[in-house]
């Protein structure tokens, strides 16, 4: 019973990192914004788990792919912790993107062989 969510997290972990990095490509955002953005863009298909989002953000920061800073939000006059992409983060995004593409293509070839032949 304990194991299942663990597995799902593992499966999603790499993908989540990529989605966060991609989101930050538009500019700095705080955790709430990032989560909301991913949720909205996928038409609520991907429900953002906060228990995955924050560890992921902190992990990305540990690895030096993003940096964080407390800044005042333009519309709310309060400080939020904004995350921003670093140069290495940009490179990482390219790497993850191409890996994801390869993965998706590979899966596609297995799943829909006929479509590929046409």
């Amino acid at each position: 019973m304990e194991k299942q969510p663990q597995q799902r997290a593992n499966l999603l972990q790499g993908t989540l990192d990529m989605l966060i990095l991609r989101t930050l490509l538009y500019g700095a955002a705080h955790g709430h914004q990032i989560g909301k953005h991913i949720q909205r863009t996928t038409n609520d298909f991907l429900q953002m788990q906060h228990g995955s989002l924050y560890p992921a953000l902190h992990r990305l920061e540990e690895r030096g792919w993003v940096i964080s800073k407390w800044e005042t939000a333009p519309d709310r006059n309060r400080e939020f912790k904004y995350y921003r992409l670093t140069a290495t983060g940009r490179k990482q995004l390219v790497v993850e993107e191409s890996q994801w593409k390869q993965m998706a293509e590979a899966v596609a070839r297995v799943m829909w062989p006929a479509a590929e032949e046409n």
Partner: protein
Amino acid sequence: MRWWQIRKRDADLERELKADLELEEEEQRERGLSAEEAHYAAQRAFGNTTLIREQTRAAWSWVWIESLLRDLGYGIRGMRRNLGSTIFAILIVGLGIGGASTVFSVVNALLLRPLPFRDPAQLVFISNGENHSTQAEQYSDLRDHNQSFSDLAGWSAFYRAGDKELTGTGEPERLTSVPVTQNLFPLLGVEPALGRSFTREECQGKYSAPPAMLLSYSFWHRRFASDPNVVGKKLTLNDQPVTVIGVLPASFDFASIFAPGTPIDVFIPWPLTDDTKPHGNTMSIVGRLKPGATIGGAQAEFNVLAKQLDSQHPERNPIHPRLVPLEEHVSGQVRPALVVLMCAVGAVMLIVCANLSHLQMARMGTRQKEMAIRAALGAGRFRLLRQVLTESVTLSCGGAALGLLLAVAGTRELAHLNTFNLPLLESVRVDRTTLVFTLLATVATGVLFGLAPALQVLACKLREGLQDAGRGWSGSRRHGWFRDGLAVSQFALACLLLVGAALLIQSFLRVLDVNLGFQPERAAALRIDPSFQVSSAAQQNAFIDDVLHRARSAPGITAAGITDVLPLGGDRSWQVSGKGQIYEKDHSPESFIRVVSDGYFDALGIPLKSGRVLTESDRASSEPVVVVNETLARTLWPGQDPVGQVMTQDGGRRVVGVVGDVHHGGPERSGGSEMYLPMRQTGDYPAMQLIVRTVLPPDSLAAGIRAVLRPIDPNLPVKDFQTLQELVDKGMSPRRFLVILLSGFAGFALLLASLGIYALISYSVSERTKEIGMRMALGASSGLVQRDVLAKTLRLALSGVALGTLGSFALSKGIESLLFGTTTTNPAVFLGVILLLCAVALVAAYAPARRASRIDPMEALRTE
């Protein structure tokens, strides 16, 4: 952010989550929900914030440090709860680690650390035959004609302690000087700390009047208080002016490397071209191999060169070059002893581990419930394992702190034992390598003794652990064989150490028992070379007469004589033959030379076997005579009366007496042939040593001797007054060192093994209380119970001893070369050790056995 900023980072995370949560709440409100509804909706959307915090923290890579700190906290709390056993553990780990680190620092200094020279691996010591020196002329030819070495250098093997007298500035003092070839320091790669090395010109003067000298660092520090202005000053050595041209660096300690036990004060140039330098085999040679050259190739080349030289120069002494790496020459002799010590330390550490392993298992047994609760609350197996290991490593670190203190004190003590005849002893200290060793040993110890208890915790079933019946009928029977194994292994290792120590103690006693051929007790020696230049035999003999008459008139003196070398030193030897005997070149017998005055044999207590001793009337004008020892008499005139025979030395010397052999090479070596020439009939000797025998304690003599000799030489330094017992002790110091350390380890091992078996038996008695109670209720007598416990103890002890005995046989090769007068299979030693161990085991088990026999069946059966 670093790990120690954990609080700050935690607060930051909390603030981040709070800000985002509030935003969510605001957005919900903006959608038109009431404040309360918005709050709950936000909470729902967010999920469990505490859990999010926990999960986020886990992403921080240094989270392990945090849990390590927590484990440490648990560990220290646990240690405080069991203060008694904690102190015991720290104490024995401390003693073990202290011993191990001290021995390691000695091994490090003597065997591991490179010699303080440039590229020491390229340096080769070249001896002549087994361990003799080489003639200077041969050295020059070897140096010029070999292809293997970039250069050869040498120093005089025949320097004598205190051969130069420093006068003129301050208190007069006898200095020990070593003549060296000009290239010695450059070859070794030693740069003077101040000034410069010798020039070519300085090495072409007279042997007896060196123009320049280099000071050793310690002498410079002691005599001149490290005054840099001493360079360039002229000092007076043996009434000759000598310029100080430099000071050697502190790292270059010639004495501790090449002449353990004899501090060297100054170095003087050795003019090889001077014909007045001492003849014969006088030079120790060191060479630096060319890059790529091997010692085997060099040896082959030198064998050929030596043959050529022997045939080209039949007038010279023959040479048999033997090449060994310099490092091996310096420390090769002590290697077996150090290896034995290192193994002993390893065995002691294993016993410590076995002992503590049992202790920890017992402690963990009482904490089974705690561990079970931790496991029930979700601690993983790995987490528990880590916690138990953290505890044991923390314990061993506490012990290591104590051990390091002991090691620092121990090494400091050792480094100042300048009466010890061990090379490089002064450089023994706790350095970085030793610290690394100590750290590794500490962690290894902690893991080793913590592993079994940790696995025991893991094996424990959750339900069993939670039930109070932690120690039921067969509570930890499962681990019974393991505990027994721990006790057995302690006995086996202790047996090993005791056998080794006993063999070496026996050897040491045998060495002490050796009749040296003279009586060192109540005899003392003092260097008394005349401070003037001796110009004639008459002048020399008048000096000798004067000194002896005055010395004999001093209070408490029963005999006095003069010699050129002290017993246990000096290896000047000549080829000898009786008149009319013809030997092939290189095959005639060799004999050590001693130049002595009348009274010498009485002063040293060397017994006269036949004929007469030397007297005051054996002078330059009388017939040349000689006294030989029994070995020489047997060698030259087997089966004949040696007295009255003539030796070919100095144009014929008549043998007037035969004296007993003296162990000049130390008690462990037989003395060989010796001949004693009357000092009044020769001028060829390197030093004058006055030897006195006294009825007073020899230490109290110095002042009296100085008073009676003052009229002859007011500058006589009496600091070098030494008793012959000191001399003998110094010769035996390496063996004494080994015996003391090994006995210490063996004693410690015995103590630990007895504590170990005591702990095991008490534990098993208390564990079996119910069983024993039941048996007694069924009719077993208390005597039977007691016998049972003792029988079990004896069984364990005997298994250990049997294993240990087998082990000793297997390892006996390692110790064989260190034994003297005994063998590795000495039955008395083995029997003694076995009896001792069994006795110790029974004594240790007596108290628990008695406790077992006093168990009240009613009480025992009611406790559950």
